[in-house]
């Protein structure tokens, strides 16, 4: 596949004036191009399904479907699409909802001229974009969860490793796991060693407890 020279953006906001302003902000940059606009969340989902769109910038509050609903829909139907949420609310609940909905960034409208361009670029590099207040909120949430003994949402394991933890906790043998995941038994063994090392655990018993705590298996 050829290297893209610019990021193709879908811009969704119910206010035409805001869309126009955002377009001016984005199109001042050589690497960003607005290729589609939407005036509500349902239209954003429709336009965002177009494979010509690389990144959807969604206002959080829109008629018909909110930006969060549209983000959820788009990220589940098009896992390759990147999504940014634009919001007038410096509010952690919306921030967490946005991240849960699959957005890789949350940009405050009040500083959109400063942050939006950087957020688009970070997102396309595969990095999250959060404003400083959002980072504080996430850290606070992390610390509180840790204090309550909950597993931090920041996962040290790769999705593949999580898959394997679940199978181990379900008491499957190495051979069964290897067959299931179409891996060699040796690879499964190596994953197992890595998982134990990452989690600082010694054996299967601890691993099962961990899987239960993470909700991977029922106790």
């Amino acid at each position, binding site marked *: 596949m050829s290297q893209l020279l610019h990021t193709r953006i879908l811009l969704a906001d*119910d*206010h*035409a*004036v*805001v*869309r*126009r*302003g*955002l377009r*001016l*902000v984005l199109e001042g940059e050589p690497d960003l191009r607005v290729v589609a606009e939407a005036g509500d969340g349902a239209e954003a989902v429709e336009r965002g399904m177009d494979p010509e769109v690389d990144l959807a910038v969604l206002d*959080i*509050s*829109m*008629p*018909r479907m*909110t930006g*969060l609903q549209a983000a959820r829909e788009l990220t589940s139907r098009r896992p390759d699409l990147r999504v940014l949420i634009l919001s*007038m*609310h410096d509010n952690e609940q*919306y921030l967490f909802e946005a991240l849960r909905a699959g957005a890789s960034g949350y940009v405050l*409208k*009040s*500083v*959109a*001229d*400063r942050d939006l361009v950087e957020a688009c670029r970070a997102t396309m590099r595969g990095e999250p974009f959060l404003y400083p207040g959002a980072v504080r909120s996430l850290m606070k949430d992390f610390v509180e969860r840790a204090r309550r003994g909950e597993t931090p949402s920041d996962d040290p394991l790769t999705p593949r490793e999580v898959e394997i933890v679940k199978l181990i906790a379900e008491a499957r043998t190495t051979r069964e796991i290897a067959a299931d995941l179409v891996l060699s038994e040796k690879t499964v063994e190596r994953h197992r060693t890595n998982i134990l090392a990452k989690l600082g655990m010694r054996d299967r018993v601890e691993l099962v407890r961990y899987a239960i705590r993470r909700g991977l298996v029922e106790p």
Partner: protein
Amino acid sequence: MDPESPDQHAVVMDIVLVDDHPAVRAGLRGLVEDEDDLRVAATAATAREGFEAIADTRPDLALLDLHLPDDDGLSLCLRTRSLPSPPRVIIYSAFADPGLAVRAAIAGAEGVLAKATAPRLLLDAVRNGADSTLDTRALRALGERLDAADLPILGMLAHGVGQREIAVTLGLEPEWLEARRWAMLSRLGGAARRHPLAAA
């Protein structure tokens, strides 16, 4: 305006835009600058900067966002309208409703425009005046929350009577009338705001 008209004046309307969202400022500026007869005299992100810009540039019109970080657009409007030869003021808000229109009239605004207003209609209001009719039910509902003594002021404002004429009619000093309007606005200040995620 007929572009063919030979006696066309090169009258340009100067506008000050006050909104804390840069995308809104940029969008409005772009919209206004595409029009030959309109010009952006200044933009501002806060009520304080906005008041200074209006006092300095003496525009024909000020388009004021309702929610500003340091004050609300209505009190900025009232202060603006107390300047000598004040500009027309239109309040620009995401939460435009009949109650806001009444409060905007008390603040001396010509009218309220919803942020969802199509650009064409927005330009039309900028040139020819915003719709200033007030909803009678909203007038009655808000009137009930005011001092009886303030109702004649509200009634005259609702009928588009100018502030000087109101002061003369009621035998009030202009400063006193302004103070009454401040009091009315602050009494009506906690107007119901909708849930931010509710569909428009």
